[in-house]
């Protein structure tokens, strides 16, 4: 057991931290948010140059061969800086699905282009009635001659507005909530039959509602056997979101402690009040517990035991959701009015943390999933 970073990991961390420190200040971020789709092409090129866009891919595919730990390092730094670029959508979700489900040829074609920053992907999966149920897919894929066509409605597609390629889940067979029979398909975003309604989200990331009407599609892997890949990639993505949340919480906690030490009222720093000290201690405890669970999810995210992996990831998502809500609410409360203004970073961290809870299942959803699976300490010691 070793919590130390390897030399390579330390290098990775240092370079990502330096990049966001230099190029992703709060004011700079405001400018990036105003660009089309709400993110910076220039930063995207920077990530490519640093190798971040190919981080989890094999070296053959222009990647870095990194695992969940490397992703954690990057996502934590991204969380502190509130990065807006489509990293999760393209690298973790899109790239992850190509890795997990695509043919060798598809991988060889697409992954290098992701790593090079030449393509932006989005995962069009969630449907309105599904809420957080990954297997609830009504969108249908049918074969028309040799070609596949997809019809259905996808929602809250992360960066679905600026992606050039959509990875779309669609049902090839089975009932609406069956895990079996779900296929993954590649659909060019500009293809006929694809209608996108893009929007900014609460956290300034972007999303889209996407209608598909007989849209032409290429199967990613074997049609109808996509669910295992979806489950695996979503679990990994959740672990990455946990790391992002830890970064955001750490930044928010540090800002709060700093504010308490510098903000004066009644002639002294408000941090002199024991009540506020203890409350920031409770925030710290919540943060450290969250950090521990993000590490746990990271270790387990690469597990091939789908049940064990899912339980660990659910547990982490619950902890992150609870800690983030607590840390976020307390941070705003301890800041007072200033924490509620758009001009100050704390409120933005709070909003992103709030929205991470809503991504791929909130704390209640994952608590139910974990409890139904028998909890964490089920086996004999």
């Amino acid at each position, binding site marked *: 057991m070793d919590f130390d970073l390897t030399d390579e990991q330390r290098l990775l961390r240092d370079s990502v931290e330096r990049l966001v420190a230099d190029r992703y200040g709060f004011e700079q971020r405001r400018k990036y948010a105003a660009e089309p789709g709400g993110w910076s092409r220039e930063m995207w090129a920077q990530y490519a140059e640093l190798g971040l866009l190919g981080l989890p891919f094999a070296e053959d595919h222009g990647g870095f061969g990194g695992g969940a730990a490397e992703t954690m390092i990057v996502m934590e730094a991204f969380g502190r800086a509130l990065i807006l670029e489509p990293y999760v959508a393209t690298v973790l979700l899109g790239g992850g699905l190509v890795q997990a489900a695509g043919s060798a040829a598809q991988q060889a074609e697409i992954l290098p282009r992701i790593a090079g920053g030449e393509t932006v992907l989005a995962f069009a999966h969630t449907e309105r009635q599904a809420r957080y149920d990954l297997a609830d897919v009504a969108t249908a894929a049918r074969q028309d001659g040799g070609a596949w066509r997809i019809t259905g409605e996808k929602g809250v597609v992360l960066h679905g507005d600026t992606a050039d390629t959509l990875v779309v889940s669609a049902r090839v067979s089975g009932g609406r909530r069956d895990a079996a029979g779900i296929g993954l398909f590649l659909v060019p975003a500009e293809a006929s039959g694809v209608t996108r309604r893009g929007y900014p*989200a609460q956290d300034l990331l972007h999303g889209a509602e996407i209608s598909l009407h007989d849209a032409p599609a290429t199967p990613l892997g074997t049609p109808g056997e996509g669910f295992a890949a979806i489950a695996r990639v979503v679990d990994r993505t959740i672990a990455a979101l946990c790391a992002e949340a830890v970064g955001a919480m750490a930044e928010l906690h540090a800002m709060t402690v700093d504010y308490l030490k510098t903000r004066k009222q009644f002639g002294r720093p408000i941090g002199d009040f024991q009540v506020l000290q203890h409350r920031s201690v409770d925030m710290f405890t919540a943060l450290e517990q969250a950090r521990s669970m993000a590490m746990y999810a990271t270790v387990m995210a690469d597990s091939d035991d789908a049940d064990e992996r899912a339980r660990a990831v659910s547990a982490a998502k619950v902890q992150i959701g609870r800690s983030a809500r607590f840390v976020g609410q307390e941070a705003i409360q301890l800041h*007072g009015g200033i924490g*509620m203004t758009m001009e100050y970073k704390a409120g933005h961290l709070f909003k992103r943390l709030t929205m991470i809870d809503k991504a791929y299942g909130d704390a209640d959803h994952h608590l139910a999933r974990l409890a139904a699976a028998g909890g964490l300490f089920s086996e004999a010691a």
Partner: protein
Amino acid sequence: MDLNFTEEELAFRDECRRFFTTEIPAALREKVAQGDHLSKDEYVTTQRILNARGWAVPHWPVAWGGQDWTPVQTYLYQDEMQQANVPAPLAFNVSMVGPVIAQFGSEAQKKRFLPRCANLDDWWCQGFSEPGSGSDLASLRTTAKRVGDKYIVNGQKTWTTLAQHADWIFNLVRTDPTAKKQEGISFLLIDMKTPGIKVRPIQTIDGGHEVNEVFFDDVEVPAENLVGEENKGWDYAKFLLGNERTGIARVGVSKARIRRLKQLAAREVAGDVPLIEDRRFREKLAEVEIELKALEMTQLRVVADERRAVKGKPNPASSILKIKGSEIQQRITELTMDLAGPYAWPYTRDEDEGSNEPPVGPDFAAEAAPMYFNYRKVSIYGGSNEIQRNIIAKAILGF
């Protein structure tokens, strides 16, 4: 001990309910129910309907339009108004500057300001908070220097709610720079159209524009706009802040919101099951309902005590109302956001009403997260919940 309302009280309640639900436009009340922001016109319309009925300023002196109601009547009026999603008469007018002018103002000031105040002919805003003052209000630095029959005002106010609509501002200013803290402060009424006043919006994290900074640069204010005596402004501010503490729990608002949340949860499905049938969600709802019922009873106990209370001296138990009332309001916004699920994420709030695009996701979802973000304020403003705990510790528990 009889916790039931009397026949007369019930009749009064029904009268309130009838009036609010028939005389105030339904579309306007529906906007309130949904958590939409109201336009200035909508506030004005509502308050004038209430004022025409004599119900805009029931707690004012009868001579100036008050109703001489019992505490229970005042409670019922508020509760029914809130439950019917009627926007309350503008607090800055009817609960803040109005009572101060009525109590401490000159006859000329009363005649000039009070009727317009009640009818929302003048929209007032509050110039108390300053950058750096926070809960330590008395540390304010805005100055007013007497020159002849004028005051020259310089300084900055902040968190000024709806200053963008305001015709007048009631301002705490430092008139004696040598005096310490609470002393040397005066209470000044200032026309917002006076040259030298600049209003700068503060955008809040929900994307809304409720609060502002207000800058005063050599603003000339006629000396006749001083309320009461010079350097006694702190007393008037305390009087103002001590008024009207039971409405602060906003029990009626929360009741309306919970009922709406239940309707939404009966509609919104996960898989094929309405969320209201999800045991965990239902129990979380029931938990808030219990807290709210308890708070309603606590509020009624405070109301009952008001008969014996010294006028203008706030019941420290009202700090409980503030703490629990804000927690419950926040919790309801949290549950509403949880109900919206993944659709809490898109930011598709429609500020200019003109759009006819269909909503993204469930129709309530666009307001769910903004309202959650916005409602963090209710445990901060009006004396933060930490300040309320200090009050209870000192005034009730005797620490």
